[in-house]
Structures are given as structure tokens and as C-alpha cells.
């Protein structure tokens, strides 16, 4: 009797319907596969906002195709009455709750990520102490590449529990902070001006964004933090390298000395 009830939820699937379902699934997979190759290819040739916009279209398009495919297929297989849907969703929910809780949670978080946008392809994010560029947002996990070219897969599940640090938040502006450490006895205004000019004359700098120098006095000397934005977030490490190299060269020409950590402030690391 129970078997009859369950079978009653489903329609009689004809061979034509099977072919149609197969075609819908094939086309959907083809569109998603193609978008995951064509859009990154286009994005590689773009810069700034245009690049990020094209990259952000990949997960959005996938969700749209996925939802359309479901809407197309489900009425072909199931008698779509409220009663039937409640019964099927209830049964599915029970199975998922026991067997694949984390997996489904990641899938749902993946859908949430598409409209809530905690990260998008092209963003520079930090999750659980790992920093890198979001290369791909999959159904279950986000794929990021660290500056050392290591691919890290982070399940969307982290979205519920972890802090997601996004350095550029979907835009081309990513602040870089470069530190300089000097002994305390020097003309701070002169050093500040020199460091501002170091950033201003870097070819990597985004001139539309502000350049600031923050000074803080520490027991061992003075800590300068030069804050500026590169033209493209992908240039952040070359930008900081350029600022450090030219900043050091300019500071060496001034009557200042670089700070060395005194023994009492040194951190002892046990092997």
C-alpha cells in the first residue's frame, strides 16, 4: 500500500520524456561547462571592474541554469501538487539530514554566496588564516589560489561559522600596507613625505585612490605604515615589493637608521 502511495507521486515517464530530460541535463551541463571556460578566458583579457563583472557572472549563470533545469524536469517526473511536493521534500529532507548534512549545507551556502556575495571570483579573501584569490566558485566549495600558487578548496559551509575577510569586495580597489621600521630619533614629517612620494611615483599605484602614511611609536622605534592601492589587485605583491625596494633606497639617503629589534623584544621561537 505504501509503495503504491509513493509510486503515485510520480508520473508515468515515457521514452520521449526520458530523452527530453537527457537533452535538458546535457544542455545545462554544456552551458555551465562552457561558461566556466569562456568567461575566465574573456576575464583574463580584461582589467578592473570589467574583469570582476565577467568573473562574477559564472556562479550566477550556473545557479540560473540549474534552477531552470529543475523547473523544466520536475513537472515531467512528478505530479506537482502541494501534497506531493510536501511529501517528497519531507522524505528528501530526512535523508539529507542523516546522510549528507554537511554536503547539502555547503550546496545551500553556495547558493547563498551567489546573492549575498561574501566572495566573488577575482576577490582576495582570507578564510581560516589562508589568503588568496578566488579563482572559482563551485557548487560545494570555493577554489582559491594563494600567493605561493597553492590551490585551496574551502567548503561554502565555512560561510555559516567562519569570518570571511574580503580585501577588495568585488571592486578593483585593494589596499596594500607596507611597513618600514626606523629608530626613534629622526624627522618624522620628512620621512612621511618621502614615503608618500615613494607611493606616488610607483608605476603600480592607483592615482585615483588616496595615499596615506600612518606613524606609530613603539618601544623599539617608529613604525611607518604606507597605505596605497595598486591599479589591479593582482599587482599587490609586485606593488609592495616596489614600495619596499624604493622606500628603502630613499630612506638610506636620509639621516635615519633602520630599527633592529632589541634582545628584550625579540620573540624566541622554539624549534
Amino acid at each position, binding site marked *: 500500500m505504501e509503495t503504491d502511495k509513493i509510486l503515485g507521486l510520480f508520473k508515468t515517464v515515457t521514452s520521449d520524456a526520458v530523452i527530453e530530460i537527457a537533452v535538458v541535463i546535457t544542455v545545462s551541463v554544456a552551458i555551465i561547462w562552457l561558461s566556466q571556460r569562456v568567461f575566465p578566458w574573456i576575464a583574463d583579457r580584461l582589467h578592473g571592474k570589467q574583469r570582476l563583472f565577467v568573473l562574477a557572472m559564472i556562479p550566477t549563470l550556473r545557479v540560473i541554469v540549474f534552477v531552470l533545469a529543475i523547473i523544466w524536469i520536475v513537472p515531467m517526473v512528478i505530479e506537482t501538487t502541494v501534497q506531493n511536493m510536501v511529501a517528497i521534500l519531507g522524505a528528501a529532507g530526512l535523508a539529507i539530514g542523516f546522510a549528507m548534512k554537511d554536503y547539502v549545507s555547503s550546496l545551500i551556502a553556495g547558493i547563498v554566496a551567489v546573492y549575498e556575495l561574501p566572495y566573488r571570483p577575482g576577490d582576495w579573501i582570507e578564510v581560516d588564516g589562508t589568503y588568496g584569490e578566488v579563482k572559482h566558485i563551485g557548487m560545494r566549495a570555493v577554489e582559491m589560489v594563494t600567493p605561493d600558487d597553492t590551490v585551496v578548496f574551502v567548503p561554502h559551509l565555512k560561510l555559516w561559522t567562519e569570518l570571511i575577510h574580503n580585501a577588495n569586495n568585488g571592486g578593483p580597489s585593494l589596499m596594500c600596507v607596507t611597513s618600514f621600521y626606523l629608530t626613534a630619533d629622526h624627522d618624522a614629517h620628512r620621512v612621511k613625505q618621502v614615503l608618500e*612620494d615613494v607611493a606616488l611615483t610607483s*608605476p603600480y599605484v592607483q592615482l585615483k585612490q588616496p595615499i596615506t602614511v600612518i606613524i606609530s611609536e613603539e618601544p623599539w622605534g617608529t613604525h611607518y605604515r604606507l597605505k596605497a592601492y595598486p591599479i589591479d589587485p593582482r599587482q599587490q605583491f609586485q606593488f609592495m615589493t616596489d614600495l619596499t625596494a624604493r622606500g628603502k633606497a630613499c630612506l638610506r639617503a636620509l639621516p635615519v637608521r633602520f630599527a633592529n629589534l632589541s634582545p628584550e623584544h625579540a620573540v624566541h621561537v622554539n624549534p
Partner: protein
Amino acid sequence: MAEFKRPDAPASTKVQQLAQHFRNLFPKRDDAPSDEQEHDFPGYREFDLKPGADALDSAWDEWRKAGEPGIKFLISPPFSGTAAIAREWAERHNWRKITAPQESELADVDIDKWWKPQASSPWIIDDLSNYWRRGTDGLAFIRALLPKLFRGELGQGLVVCDSWSFAFLQRAWPVNMPNVYCFAAADEKLMQEVGIQADEKKLKSLAARAFGNLGLALALWAVEKDDEHDLPSMPSDCHDETAFVLYTLLLHTGLSGRTLQKVLPMIAADQLDVQLLQLQQAKLISYDDEVWRITVYGYLAVRDFLRSRGFFVDAF
């Protein structure tokens, strides 16, 4: 300068510009370079400077005759001929042309030492981009010079500044500069006056493509009339370094290889040579009198390339 307005582009021109933008984004693989002669572009004719100088006369005659200390800025988009017009105007009234400081004088930041041997009033600085370098030791001179100019300490003068240089200087010395002027955008009538014979729609399209820049319009017209050549486009393998070289050359209206290396120390010397040769082969830059410059024919492609990469472009 705030009143400057670019000519409106007809819809067909906007589509052409969009197509050109996509061609720049997705360049074709480079073909093997053919004979040098075959790639030579038609020489583009310079235009008569007298009407421009007359326009300056009518605008500034009162100020000039008053002879009071103070300056006026004239912003010159690349290849617009503005600097040449200003020089013609200055010669007409016997204004002395000031010599730009040498590299050592830029580093010394001794304005008086540079100024005294040529001190006279009135005067003209015909290219302010030679008065600074984009380096940590290349900004102090102009930062010391500009306040003196604005206070009138060096007498009456006219300062011609390239539009790219001006955009950067406004960022480096963020003061709302007074008395800044530029020529109005060239329209169809002006183009006919300098000898471009075409129907009105064509002239309007040309004016829009050239951003109202008369010199650029003449160059575009010369290429359009020449069946053998198209405008140069960006090479397929452009990197950050390519953009840095092009942007630096625009900022300084051309630089020698040695100075370019000094301004861009992060590019290794051999890599810089590769970039320069590649851009020269693509006809985007030229090498004359030991100075690398953007070519007039390559300017549109270079500007579009830099803008699409998010660089700080000029206001024209």
C-alpha cells in the same frame, strides 16, 4: 578648462569605437613584421598656427599688455599643436622661451640657480613635462617652482603643460590651479578650414574619434585616405611593463632610454629594450633624436589600452 566639451559622437562612430576597443582587448596574433618601407605611415601635415595664435591674442591681449606678474596655464592634449601655437604667439610678442632644467638641476632643486641666467619677463615655458620626473627625486623641483610661478615671483609668463602631465601634477600637487585654459574642441568647421574635405557626417565622426584634437584628426584623416595602412593596434602580448612604459612616455611627452630606465627601475634594462623594440615594431612609439615618443597614429590605441587597464588618463 572646465568648459571643455568633447564633440558628440554619432551612433555609428560609437559602434566603431566599441569595435576598436574589443580589437584592442583581443588582439590578433602578430604577423611576421614585413618590410620597414611598407609599414611607413603617411606623413601627416601640420596646420597653420596663425589662427590659433590670433585666438590667443584676442583672449589674452589685455592681460599681456597689462604686464603684471602672474601666469596662465595652457593645457595641451598630445599632438593637438597647442604648444606650437603658444610658441608662435610668444615669438610674435617677443616673449622669451625658458630652457628646461637639466637632470642635475632637477635634483638640486635650486630654482634661483636655474632661473637667474635666463631671468626675463615676459616668458614662456613651452612644455612643463620637462620640469619634473616621476621619481622620488624628480618632484621637488616642480613643487618648489609652481608656488613661485603662481605668486608671480618670476614675472609674467605662459606655461604650456601636456594634458597627461597636468593630470598627474594635479594629483602630486593638489591645489586648485587658477587661470588654466585650453582650446575648444575642434569642430567640423575648423576641420574644413585646415583642409579636411569630407561631408558633414564624416567630419563629425572624425572630430568625435579624435576627441576634438585637431592634430589627431589630421593624422586619422591621413590614414583614412591611405588604402595601404590601418591605425596601429596593441601587440598581443602586452604586460604591466608595456603599460608602464607607455604611460611614462605620455607623462613626459617622450624620454630618452636612459631616463626611462631611471624612472622605471623595476624593469630590467634588457626587458625595457624588449618592450621598446616591440612597441616600435607595432608603430606605437618612435625613436627620434635619442628620445622615445608615442606616435600620433598609435595614440588612440595607447590611450584606450591604458584606460581599460585603469590608469589615470588625461581629461581630454
